């Protein structure tokens, strides 16, 4: 942030200079420079001493600027020296990259051969091999939808239809049965595919529900307000795992005999119910941030409640809360890993089940590092996006 300000300050000076040059007015570039009457080109530039600039200066200012910092820096470098070479030795030099587990020796180098040997199962779960291209397309559509939504000029109501359409298309592609696609049982969906499905579809469904809940919580009608508060506070007070247990053991009891709802769908409902409560709180924050004058102005135009909300309030409120909404998407993405506990084959569970294969049993560290990197990549992309967005959105207010 500070660097940004510094840069902006410099930019201002540069702009003033160039402005002065083009206008040729009394405020000449010379005067902007601190020294008087000496043309810049001829002025003898006194360079700062070597120890204050460049690499040496940087080191002095950032690593050795006090006795304590010097001590800490040396301590850290020593620790690095102790830890990093063995790690590199394990991860890169002694490691096995391809082939079967028989090529790996437990306790020597890393066995990255785990990845090529198991990647299909980890990514797609039990999805039939010859149909996995459909899983890939579905994943690309889901990631593409999220990526498409990143630009601010696309935050219009049409975006909702984009999400809805991509959800339907993904469902058709995965389920099959029409357009000449072989039907695939939803019990066979798994791996990263299932993780993405649960989080992206969960978000699509939870968002409108969350908005409705937020509106209900701001309502002046006591019965509706109470129901919304009770729902939101209960859900936010319990762990997600209890909701998932509910979906696993209680939901089947809710339906009349003969009706069975598959496990993935039940878990999806639990995730939607859970996420909606958190979205509701975020949206409520946005609604509260809209000045009262907006409501009053809209009402004085003769709009009714639904028009006020749809045309005036929500478009503004929902835009303000996009950064925290991305935050919820990140936690929803991480939280889908909990379905592994009720034995759905998501990314974490497929990885674990490859480890029960005696050939790969001893290589759980490598396996977990691999899927941790997948999770990290997705979350890091989203969180750095949300940080950038926050900076972009707040610059208008700070200066």
């Amino acid at each position, binding site marked *: 942030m500070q660097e940004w300000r510094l840069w902006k300050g410099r930019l201002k000076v540069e702009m003033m200079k160039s402005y002065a040059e083009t206008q040729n007015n009394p405020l000449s570039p010379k005067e902007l420079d601190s020294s008087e009457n000496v043309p810049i080109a001829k002025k003898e530039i006194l360079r700062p001493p070597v120890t204050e600039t460049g690499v040496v200066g940087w080191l002095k200012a950032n690593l050795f600027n006090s006795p304590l910092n010097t001590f800490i*820096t040396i301590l850290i470098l020593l620790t690095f020296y102790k830890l990093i070479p063995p790690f590199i030795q394990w991860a890169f030099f002694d490691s096995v990259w391809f082939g079967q587990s028989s090529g790996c020796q437990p306790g020597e180098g890393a066995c990255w051969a785990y990845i090529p040997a198991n990647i299909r199962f980890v990514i797609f779960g039990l999805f039939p091999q010859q149909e996995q291209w459909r899983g890939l397309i579905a994943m690309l559509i889901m990631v593409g939808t999220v990526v498409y939504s990143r630009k601010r000029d696309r935050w219009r109501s049409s975006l909702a239809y984009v999400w809805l359409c991509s959800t339907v298309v993904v469902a058709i592609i995965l389920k099959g049965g029409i357009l000449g696609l072989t039907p695939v049982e939803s019990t066979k969906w798994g791996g990263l595919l299932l993780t993405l499905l649960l989080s992206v579809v969960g978000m699509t469904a939870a968002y409108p529900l969350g908005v409705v809940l937020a509106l209900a919580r701001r309502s002046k009608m006591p019965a509706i307000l109470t129901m919304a508060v009770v729902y939101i506070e209960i859900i936010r007070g319990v762990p997600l795992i*209890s909701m998932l*247990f509910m979906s696993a053991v209680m939901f089947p009891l809710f339906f009349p005999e003969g009706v069975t709802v598959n496990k993935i769908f039940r878990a999806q409902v639990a995730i939607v119910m859970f996420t909606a409560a958190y979205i509701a709180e975020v949206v409520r924050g946005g609604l509260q941030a809209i000045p009262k004058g907006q409501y009053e102005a809209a009402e004085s135009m003769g709009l009714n409640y639904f028009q006020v909300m749809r045309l005036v309030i929500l478009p503004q409120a929902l835009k303000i809360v996009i950064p925290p909404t991305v935050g919820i998407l*990140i936690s929803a993405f991480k939280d889908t890993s909990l379905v592994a506990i009720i034995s759905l084959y998501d990314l974490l569970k497929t990885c674990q089940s490859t480890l029960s294969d005696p050939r790969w049993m001893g290589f759980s560290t490598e396996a*977990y590092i691999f899927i941790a990197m997948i999770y990290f990549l997705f979350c890091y992309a989203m*969180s750095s996006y949300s940080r950038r967005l926050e900076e972009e959105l707040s610059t208008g207010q700070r200066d």
Partner: protein
Amino acid sequence: MQKDHISGPIWTSATFRSVVYQIAAISIVSLTSWYLFTNTTANLAKQSIATGFGFLSREASFEIGESMISFSSSDTYLKALAVGALNTIKVSFIGIVFTVTLGIFVGIARLSSNWLVSKIAAVYIEVFQDIPVLLQLFFWYTIFNNVMPSPRAALIPFDGVVLCNRGVYFATPADHPAFLWMGYAFIGACFLTFFLRRWAKKRQEETGQIFPLLTVSIALIILLPTVTWSLMGAPTQMDMPTLNGFNFEGGYNVSPEFGSLLLGLVLYTSAFVAEIVRAGIQSIERGQREAAESLGLRPLFIMNLVILPQALRVIIPPLTSQLLNLIKNSSLAVAIGYPDFVSTSNTTISQTGQAIEGVAIIMLMYLTISLMTSLFMNWYNARMALVER
């Protein structure tokens, strides 16, 4: 409710409409609940599962690996749940203490003028925030199980600490009455400090004299137990973990389940806490410190009277929600086999088939914890809030 001045048909009245909407909403919710309720009772009757909480007094007939109170399989389900609840409280409490400490440390490190320290803190925050906590638990658990050596080849980094695939063993002071009295002395010192603080504050308000409270209270809290210890004969006997057959005996054992649960929860949550602490410290404008300095306050007073009270106001609310998250996430213990509340309830559900009661008990337990914490935090917040004219 808005008064309406337009006369007209009754359905144009705002009051009338709001009543209609509310009745509609209530009836939809109650009809749905009634539908689900009748289905559920019908299903339960068909599967001949008795409803109610009677099962709690039946014999549990399962063993629990770790327990703070004595428990055997002949005890009741209620006691099994109590054991689970105690284990949840234990891991949450220790986890919160470590999380806050580590979080503050990393948060301050993130603001360090040392580039290396600040960057390491940044990487720590980013990495641990972006990996699901459940995966982290599995990772530490697998480190304990697959990477740590067997007890016979245990790692002993220094005397009194043993690392192996049965967990971590610490040497503890051998049993001696002196330690009990040290505990009393510690509690006594805490009480003394409390009263000292009140007295010092009163004296300062009356006379303006400042009492060196911090130094005196630290000295009290350290000295009183130490003096007790030396008066009781200064016992130095340690209970060392020693290899006996295939396992270690003696000392304090941290099981792999508890160890990996604690490690995972602490590392994950402290990354979030670090960000909160950093934001809180950065939220204090520089002018505040400069103003305090220009008043001639000493550094310690600047921190205590000017910076901390303001930073805490920013830090406390998000910190609370993170610590609540830690408590809720401790329920993931069920995945690695640490017998916490959810884990014992889950076993109870699968043994008795009392799904609804079991899930209700789990939810009620966590709701109680959450509500109690928010009540406490609201009270604390009200105390800390800006007092304006």
